[in-house]
């Protein structure tokens, strides 16, 4: 590894964080949609949904957190795309810096931005009556899963960021990711779904991750479910990371 990797990544991370600080609207727009979903489902649809838990906001929050991440990472693709469009990406590439630091700075920025959005969402949920008895360890486990999920989706976002031909193309990839929680246990129990939909819902990553977070918040034994959730996160992360780096290497050589 290049001896300047840590230093260069830090400098470039500082640059991207300044971008966020100067356009906080990216954080606000990331948080607005999940908050709207939360209001809609808790106060409009929630009364008609039979979840078997006493508080629907408690049931809903894990899925909302994943939607937040799925919409937040589209800004990583967007920012990367803008760097590629302007000359600044080529300037960095023609300088004596560790080349991978350009990508890592965007990835770490995504982590920071998503953590801020997630904290906002959790605060809103608390206002709406979300309660958990989870202790420090439980919260740490939830934070760990969410960070891993953010990291995995961010590396997916790097790929359209590097290859997109237009701004719309760079962020459109996140729509299916935002939609995925709707066909999972995030809003309603999968038992209510017809056969094939239910089969899909029960075997896709969002359900495993949502169930694990829900159990952690409810202080119920997570069993083997948490390992399925972690396996999905790590699996997506590894595949996305490899493809993103392959794309990057093709792009710069």
């Amino acid at each position, binding site marked *: 590894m290049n001896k300047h990797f840590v230093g260069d990544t830090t*400098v470039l991370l500082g640059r991207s964080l300044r971008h966020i600080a100067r356009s906080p609207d990216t954080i606000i727009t990331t948080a607005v949609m999940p908050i709207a979903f939360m209001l809609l489902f808790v106060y409009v649809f929630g009364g008609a949904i039979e979840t078997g838990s006493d508080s629907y906001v408690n049931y809903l929050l894990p899925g909302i957190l994943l939607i937040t991440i799925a919409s937040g990472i589209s800004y990583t693709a967007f920012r990367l795309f803008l760097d590629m469009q*302007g*000359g600044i990406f*080529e300037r960095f590439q023609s300088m*004596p810096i560790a080349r991978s630091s350009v990508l890592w700075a965007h990835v770490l920025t995504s982590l920071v931005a998503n953590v801020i959005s997630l904290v906002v969402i959790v605060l809103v949920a608390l206002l709406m009556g979300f309660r958990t008895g989870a202790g420090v360890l439980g919260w740490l486990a939830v934070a760990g899963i969410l960070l891993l999920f953010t990291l995995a989706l961010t590396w997916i976002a790097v790929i359209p960021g590097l290859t997109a031909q237009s701004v719309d193309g760079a962020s459109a990839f996140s729509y299916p990711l935002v939609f995925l929680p709707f066909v999972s246990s995030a809003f309603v129990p999968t038992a209510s779904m017809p056969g094939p939909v239910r089969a899909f819902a029960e075997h896709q990553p969002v359900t495993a991750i949502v169930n694990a977070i829900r159990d952690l918040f409810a202080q119920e034994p997570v069993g083997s479910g948490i390992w399925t959730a972690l396996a999905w996160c790590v699996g997506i992360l590894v595949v996305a990371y490899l493809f993103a780096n392959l794309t990057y290497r093709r792009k710069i*050589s």
Partner: protein
Amino acid sequence: MSNSPTSAQVEQPAIRVHGLEKSFKQVKVLRGVDIDVARGSIFALLGSNGAGKTTVVRILATLLRADGGTARVAGFDVATQAADVRNSISLTGQFAAVDEILTGRENLVLVARLRHLREPGAIADDLLGRFSLTEAGTRRVGTYSGGMRRRLDIAMSLIGNPPVIFLDEPTTGLDPEARIEVWQAVKELARGGTTVLLTTQYLDEAEQLADRIAILHEGRIIVNGTLDELKQLLPPAEIEYVEKQPTLEDVFLTLVGAKTEKEQR
């Protein structure tokens, strides 16, 4: 950095290109380009749009791999010693490579940090002064005019005093005043011993700046020489007496000249 230049490298031309070839899919963009650029000189690569000027620059700046031929910059091979080449060059591309959300000063500090220099703040302030950007330094680059952006872009390229600088169409899209500002900056660079390779489609720009001019046409260098040598390729000039009319550029510059001087003060 790791390879200190040997005496042979010091005597070599700053840029030496031999038999450079590059195709994009079926299109042969470069079909054997040969160029030598002496140290401390300004070399202009002329050509119409799509002639392959940018491709040459991108290969020399290690952003693109050549299909064939060799290229050495500051004595280092661009294919096998890319890291050393990057340490010796800087590139100012066709589109100003500046960060619009950061201020001018922050842009300069960013590049100084990435070049691992000490006192990035002092370097930034010095360059802001040299390029008449001190007052604008605390403003976001998004608010800059095209000329100011280009000046900042070139200032960013000077950080760390790289011995070789590539300027890819540095004045495309600039108004006449801004062009002259950029020309002055380039001349000052060469006076300081920096080797400059610039591409342009403006013939007067090459005339104004370059020690040597090469014309890239259909993937090959068709002529290469000083301005006088190129002029001798045509039959000697006939002497005609013509009333000297001011060009539109002269008129424009005279009319707006007072304003420019005030701004520079």
